[in-house]
């Protein structure tokens, strides 16, 4: 099958890769670039486990084609920590025991980051709305929502705003 | 003498009797004795010489794990009950 050369910025690094037009961005990230942090839960955009940022917007990478990444900026769970230092969100998910099996966690972290990047002071309903596209079957969401609210408060108190959320 | 409580659907072998006193020091002996008192009932409990995988044995209120090898006391109460994964009793 004929492949296309794509150049994109993934987690801050310029990357060139070959993919078939029929390959989703998720498949490209996982199978071509070996970034398996983004997960496949449904391939229909209903579970959010594959959520990544495409030019700063949260999208289901299963509903984006790999070839669409040309010239775009993509951020995945692998890029959340900086030089091995976990982001506030990552730490809060651990402190609040917000994960059980952990398969949905990468998607939740990206959706939560996308929310806090835009709204550093979300209410509980705003957090719940922002995370409604991510299914978790283990936790009942309680500890996830608490972690995101706590992360927001923590980031505000650090006064680092968006930078810290990244 | 240990008491064996007969599961509802096996009481047809005991003429409806629910609690039977049976001599024996192990589950193996109790099942053998049961079979002598009520012919056929032992075959309902055994497969290849041990308790059927679909049956759990409770000795004095605790699910036992030794099949026919488990020991019983003079005053033990033994129940044969369906195993959680889907039983036959």
């Amino acid at each position, binding site marked *: *099958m004929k492949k*296309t050369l794509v150049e994109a910025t993934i987690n801050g690094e310029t990357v060139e890769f070959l993919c*078939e*037009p*029929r390959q*989703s961005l998720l498949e490209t990230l996982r199978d071509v670039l070996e970034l398996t942090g983004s997960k496949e839960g449904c*391939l*229909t*955009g*209903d579970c*959010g486990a594959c*959520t990544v940022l*495409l030019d700063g*917007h*949260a*999208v*289901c990478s*299963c*509903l*984006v*084609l790999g*070839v*669409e990444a040309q010239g775009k900026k993509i951020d995945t769970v692998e890029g959340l920590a900086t030089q091995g230092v976990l982001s506030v969100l990552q730490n809060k998910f651990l402190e609040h025991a917000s994960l059980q099996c952990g398969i949905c966690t990468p998607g939740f972290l990206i*959706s939560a980051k*996308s929310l806090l990047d835009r709204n550093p002071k979300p209410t509980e309903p705003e957090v719940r*709305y*922002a995370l*409604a*596209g*991510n299914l978790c079957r283990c936790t009942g969401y309680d500890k996830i929502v608490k972690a995101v609210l706590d992360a927001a408060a923590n980031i505000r108190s650090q006064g680092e705003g968006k930078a810290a959320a990244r | 003498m240990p008491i064996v409580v007969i599961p509802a659907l096996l009481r047809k072998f005991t003429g409806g009797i629910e609690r039977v006193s049976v001599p024996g020091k192990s589950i193996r002996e109790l099942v053998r004795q049961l079979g002598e008192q009520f012919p056929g009932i032992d075959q309902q409990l055994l497969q290849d010489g041990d308790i059927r995988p679909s049956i759990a044995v409770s000795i004095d209120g605790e699910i036992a794990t030794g099949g026919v090898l488990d020991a019983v006391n003079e005053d033990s109460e033994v129940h044969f009950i369906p195993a959680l994964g889907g039983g036959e009793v």
Partner: protein
Amino acid sequence: MHAINYEVPSSLDQAVSILKAHGENARPFCGGTDILIQLRAGVRRTEHLVDVKKIKELQTLSFDAKKGLRLGAAVPCIEISESDVMRRHYPGLTEAAHLIGSLQIQNRASVGGNLCNGSPAADTTPALIALGARARIVGPAGEREVPVEDFVVSPGRTVLKPGELLVELLIPAPAPHSSDAYLRFIPRNEMDIAVVGVGASVTLDGDKVKAARIGLGAVAATPLLASKAADALVGKKLDDAALEAAGHAASAVCKPIDDMRGTIDFRVHVTGVLTRRVLTIAAERAKKN
């Protein structure tokens, strides 16, 4: 998925010629949130996806107090729900765009794509119908305009001919003392397809209805314009009796199916309920304009 070709025209002409070249075997590709699922499920077997997101006419979102709204077919829903202009002048359409799927979906899906997918349950279509929106289509034979209520011809099929492309949606400027609203019923609070969707626009003359339009979704093979229900309101006060009547009239035009999302009885009943509720909201808003 079967092998596909992917092309990215930068102009309308290019897009039309590519679409024309491949005919039935090509489809415009925008947010991908419907077509990729359909291709994987084998519901469609299109081999050429023509990405229209780089064409500027399809990306325009411009409002003029006299001319109204030009909504490019590829404008993602998130731009609409985050636009103050949209929220102020077309709150109902904005609500509908905000209800489509999750934020992840709204960041990709467009109102135009929602319409072209041809689903009877599309959230934004009843809202467009309520606003009297027209679809501007460009194709090998030139340009044409189609009222949105006539755009979908059957589930998954539209008036678009091979080579044709939806460029933008043209929505009249809101009349004084008018507004719109959209409500849908879903079993959960997010992530579901509408079981019933009702959009309404109301123009008031004092405490009486001067004009009204009602669009219905998910209650027939295509989205509907419930003219009788709306026309019956004209000249009336929007009191309980009028709302009741409008609800019944809306229920009366439903031809829904029984499926995993709802029963026929349920859909008919809820159409009446939502029609009453949505008219009330639209009227409340109209009073303020």
